[in-house]
């Protein structure tokens, strides 16, 4: 009997939930806001689906309705990727230790 590939993906999914569980509990509470913005940025890896959808060519027309949805999704995900990572970076820059330089 062969195992359905879905089961393998499902296994990855479940294991990743466990990894996420332990990793997130170790995040210090003072960094919970950057945690939210960075999870937001990484969940925009959904852009890979958008790129595939946008580049799919079933005909010569590159603006089939399914491509258009792909392009729209690229814009949305790109806003998130750049916005999410940069705003996280900006926040993390602000976390400083005691008495480094008093301005």
């Amino acid at each position, binding site marked *: 009997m062969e195992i359905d590939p879905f089961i393998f993906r499902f296994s990855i999914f479940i294991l990743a939930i466990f990894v996420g569980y332990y990793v997130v509990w170790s995040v210090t509470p003072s960094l919970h806001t950057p945690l939210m913005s960075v999870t937001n940025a990484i969940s925009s890896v959904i852009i890979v689906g958008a790129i595939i959808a946008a580049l799919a060519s079933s005909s010569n027309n590159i603006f089939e309705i399914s491509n258009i949805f792909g392009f729209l999704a690229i814009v*949305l995900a790109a806003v998130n990727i750049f916005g999410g990572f940069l705003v996280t970076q900006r926040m*993390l820059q602000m976390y400083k230790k005691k008495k480094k330089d008093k301005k």
Partner: protein
Amino acid sequence: MISANLSAIFYLISGILFILALRGLSSPETSRQGNFFGILGMIIAIAVTFLTVGNFSAAMNYVLLFLVIGGAIGAFIAFKIPMTAMPELVAGFHSLVGLAAVFVAISAFLNPQAFNLGSPGDIKLASLIEMSIGAAIGAITFSGSIIAFLKLRGIMSGSPITFKGQHFLNLILGISIIVLIYFLCTTQSESFFWRMIGISFLIGVLLIIPIGGADMPVVISMLNSYSGWAAAGIGFTLENTALIITGALVGSSGAILSYIMCKGMNRSFFSVILGGFGGDSTIGKEKKKDQKPVKSGNAEDAAFLLKNASSVIIVPGYGMAVAQAQHALREMVDALKKNDIKVSYAVHPVAGRMPGHMNVLLAEANVPYDEVFELDDINNDFANTDVAFVIGANDVTNPVAKTDPQSPIYGMPVLDVEKCKSVLFVKRSLSPGYAGVDNELFYRDNTLMLFADAKKMTEDIVKNI
């Protein structure tokens, strides 16, 4: 053009980099490196996708164009946004992830060949279920986040909107989504797909409107979680490891944050979701505040008290964020430190409108993060402290949570500010907090109320120190 196996390995690598990105957040020192790992993972995922598709036709130019447009908008927002607007920014970003998931699901449904899922009208059953779940959760995330955004931004009132039969309606709509997915799978008819997405948008709105302003930390974490599950659903459809891993990470991250926030308020997750709590309309008990004497003072009195203290604990809350008082506060603390007064900050888990909200604002004002303490780490210190300076917080300091089982906030962990020798409350009025509960601290002998805008009062205190 690279093989599917090779690209799968690269997607795995980018998934691992995302795990390291979250791992980095375990301390501020490693966090910047973590963020770098995240960016690297994203670059790998996008580059590999381009190479796998390998279609460098005219469409490619548009892909790059849209990528740049979106990226420019995102970068612009990231640099311009004030730190006080972070909760609504995060809500807004969640809505984009949700909508992107819906769009990807739609194009996978319309053009399944591109994703190796079969052909229109004959999509593989498992794929159909996966993309429907991804689209439904994505749509709920989108419309729910929009409502959360509007509430946080103040465009929509923060009070809960409730009506009769609300929960029943939600239940019916939830069941109808499952029924529609069933019919979609049996008939492959497009109309069921569109209806399912439409109803999901509606559910998102209905789920969030009954939830009040003070419960926003839970809502925003919950939507964070949803955006993850939506991404995972799409990841299964696309058979993409990076997306599955990320979806699972984000989903569990949001769920844990929701749990922490609920615990910070001692409320069950379901009571938050069912809503109707935390608005101005909440029926508080009959307030007898007019009869009770309140000691109020001005900036000079406060400055005198602070100057003569040897230790001070600052308790910031949402009011500080609204008044943008964090910079003035830090100036005040600097002035106190010059007088050799020991100052630390106490942050309650649900202070503000999102997890970690106060910490970010204090960091923005150049407050070193090792002076900022969590509830459990500092609560014992109040007894040995001369002055507690409560700025814009209320419910999180209310001793009634420990003493009165009748109170709606009974059991919520609170900061023991009443154990300090004296308490200074910067607040605009005596109005109760979001829970609608009167704070008995206001009427104690050792409490001095400072009725003013938080920023203005803090600045005046600085002048008087």
